């Protein structure tokens, strides 16, 4: 029996909701197989991935600590992806946001002003936006591919970060470690509970999510972006500017990624160091797609991926897995999601066999 893919008359809403679940299921099955091959205990590994993060209060707050930046960046990226603006460089925008925000405590080491944190927020957002603006300008002015430009800008941002940490911004008392001074308390968000790293910055992604939902579902600006992504010719016909869509998409992502970078240095890390992004800029791409680019779906997807990352940390210890195992699982998720997404627009049907007794041009 052979099968073929038939295009659906219109996209299936049911499959749209089912594909993320299907992708998760397939990833779990595949990674279980991989674990079996590696001779690792499947049950306890899955337990550390999915159950352990909820077993004590501290891990739960750690999940929410990861949830924040993932949610923030993914919401903004999804807006761009719906407008078919492929910003792959949120990672770089996040780095620049972190650098810009760090400049305040680095240059005002002794300040205890209440304006430190607001200034860092403003600079973090502005830094991320300026980095994204380079890609937007190159795209609208020279039609330079934003995928390549944002990706390459990420490499530049990383080099800039290394330069600052090894040179001018290096902590003179830091035993030559590539990191800045530890920031003063006035430059940090305060913890939500004592003894945990989760802090008040979690409010930013939540407000941002509501704003993005309003923008995409109720506002004309979001409508214009969506039309531009779904039917570029219809957008031109209506008179919506394609260049503006590029600018809005990229600046919004830069804004969110910059804030996320700022929240890291002013939150759990407390200084600028090399691993400032923890790969959030890339993971957020997976989150955006896993959430079907929908503001509500992304909330769940961000939570899921956050659980996965904390669970991965647990599994590193309990099942003696390498860190790449977590990356493999994330990669599987994205691949399976993209593969199963085919079923939104296509359906599988058995191949029709000709019943007539005619000679065929080719017996395939």
């Amino acid at each position: 029996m052979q099968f073929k893919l038939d295009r659906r008359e219109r996209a299936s809403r049911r499959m749209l909701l089912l594909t993320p679940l299907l992708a998760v299921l397939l990833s779990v099955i595949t990674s279980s197989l991989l674990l079996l091959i590696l001779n690792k205990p499947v049950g306890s590994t899955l337990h550390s991935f999915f159950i352990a993060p909820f077993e004590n209060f501290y891990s739960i707050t750690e999940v929410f600590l990861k949830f924040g930046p993932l949610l923030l960046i993914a919401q903004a990226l999804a807006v761009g992806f719906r407008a078919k603006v492929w910003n792959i460089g949120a990672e770089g925008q996040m780095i620049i946001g972190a650098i810009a925000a760090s400049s305040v405590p680095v240059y005002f080491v002794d300040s205890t002003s209440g304006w430190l944190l607001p200034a860092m927020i403003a600079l973090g957002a502005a830094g991320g936006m300026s980095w994204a603006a380079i890609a937007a300008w190159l795209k609208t002015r020279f039609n330079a591919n934003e995928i390549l430009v944002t990706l390459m800008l990420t490499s530049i941002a990383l080099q800039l970060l290394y330069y600052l940490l090894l040179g001018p911004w290096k902590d003179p008392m830091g035993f030559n470690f590539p990191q800045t001074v530890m920031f003063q308390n006035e430059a940090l968000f305060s913890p939500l509970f004592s003894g945990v790293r989760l802090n008040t910055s979690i409010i930013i992604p939540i407000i941002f999510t509501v704003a993005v939902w309003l923008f995409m579902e109720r506002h004309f600006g979001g409508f214009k972006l969506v039309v531009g992504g779904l039917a570029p010719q219809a957008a031109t016909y209506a008179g919506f500017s394609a260049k503006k869509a590029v600018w809005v998409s990229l600046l919004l992502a830069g804004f969110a990624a910059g804030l996320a970078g700022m929240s890291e240095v002013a939150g759990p890390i407390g200084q600028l160091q090399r691993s400032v992004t923890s790969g959030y800029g890339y993971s957020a791409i997976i989150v955006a797609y896993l959430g079907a680019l929908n503001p509500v779906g992304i909330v769940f997807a961000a939570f899921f991926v956050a659980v996965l990352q904390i669970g991965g940390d647990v599994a590193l210890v309990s099942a003696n897995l390498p860190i790449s195992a977590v990356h493999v699982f994330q990669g599987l998720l994205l691949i399976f999601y993209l593969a199963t997404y085919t079923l939104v627009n296509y359906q599988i049907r058995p191949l029709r066999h000709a019943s007539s007794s005619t000679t065929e041009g080719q017996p395939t």
Partner: protein
Amino acid sequence: MTASPALLSLRNITKRYPAVVANDNICLEVHANSIHAVLGENGAGKSTLMKLVYGLIESDSGELYWQGQRVELRNPAAARKLGIGMVFQHFSLFETLSVVENISLTIAGSRQVLSQKIIDIGERFQLKVNPDASVHSLSVGERQRVEIIRCLLQDLKLLILDEPTSVLPPQHISALFEALRKLRDSGVAILFISHKLEEIRDLCDTATVLRGGKVAGSINPARASTQELATLMIGHEVAGVNTGSNAQTSSNSQSSDHALLQLNAVTVSSDDPFGTSLHDINLQVNSGEIVGIAGVSGNGQKELSRLISGEQMEKHLPAESIKMIGQPVTRLGAAERRALGFAFVPEERLGRGAVPVMSLAKNTLLTTFYQGMLSQGFIRGGKLKRYTDECIEKFDVRCGGAQAMAGSLSGGNLQKFIIGRELMLSPRLLFVAQPTWGVDIGAATAIRQRLIDLRNTGIGILIVSEELEELFEVTDRIHVINSGRLSPSLTTAEVTPNDIGEYMISHNQRGSHGDNSNTGDGHAV
């Protein structure tokens, strides 16, 4: 000749699509050693028929015979195995590979052997091309030769060419024809799809004319006059539309005080290799008249439409080049022109006039957003729904309500929706491209009637259509667009379809055909 069985014979081929019967009971015979033209207007079913022969799609009913044997072509590989090759309008070559590398992707044999074969074929059929040249460095004509050579390398018996000359500059066309004649003399049959009458008279031995998915007739193009071909292609049937007070309005169409649209000497060169450049376009549409633009497709209609609608802005043109409702609009975008009282119904309904996966209400927002649909940038859902509901009711759009996806509507109903949406803007100037394309006859008549009623209320209407009968039915004046040039204005009541047909082709072979000059020009206004 007729004693031997035909190389390819189609019997009662029918292919239906949800909205339209693309091929209706088509019978066709192609013989070896002949160039067989398939002629017809856009949408007549030529491409569907060729895709059936090449195995890209399957027919719903009917039979296909190859050298007298019944065959079923499930896919192009089956067709190629029989010796059928096809060259599409848009080539399928990898630009970064060389000619011989491209060919070796589908043809077995070492590069060296293939290179020699490419050179040999080039010599024999005058299809010269350097096998080691990169494809991106080749001209369009040379790329076409590569495609033809690729077909020839697989024991070719029938070559299908889909509008091969539409991509070629004039100086390459005669070279292509020379090669095709050599091919024919070597025993290959050629199916040549075109809507350019002069070419077909020049090259082809037989012509089958399609109209509305049916065979309108078969004819020897060398002996038939251009008029005969045009008549077959365009047909005569005219459905009844009440033209109302035509006489009264045509009198005031002469005055230029009511000019709603003016294009003054507009010249725009196209940067798309498949596009048409516009030369010295002068056009005026007055209030209370319908002006039509006739022509075979690909002669600049798309470019002209986008220029008038504002989808394509040519900021280098003088400010006064395009005027709308008394104002220069050359530098205004589509939305700004709409705000002046201009409305436009594009030829592509899905993807341009409407977003298929959005609801009708959301699609209403596309062009009505400046009509109080927004409050502080937020969409006023209630108002939008009322507008959409009114449009659905007033224009008899059969659908599942304002929340129905635009893509779920039939072609005719979607067209009614889009026309309704645009008319509810109360435009002073309306531009409709292909108003009844793919629309069933009842809806088409309704749409035409509405256009005439609107004209009688004083609105100026411009129509681009490839259906000549439609233009004769509704317009007061007609221009013909040909190779990006616009004919003088012709008063519809004073010309015949044949006159228009002459204008459609006259510039193609600029000045080389003396027999064109005795008609048409005399009727120019």
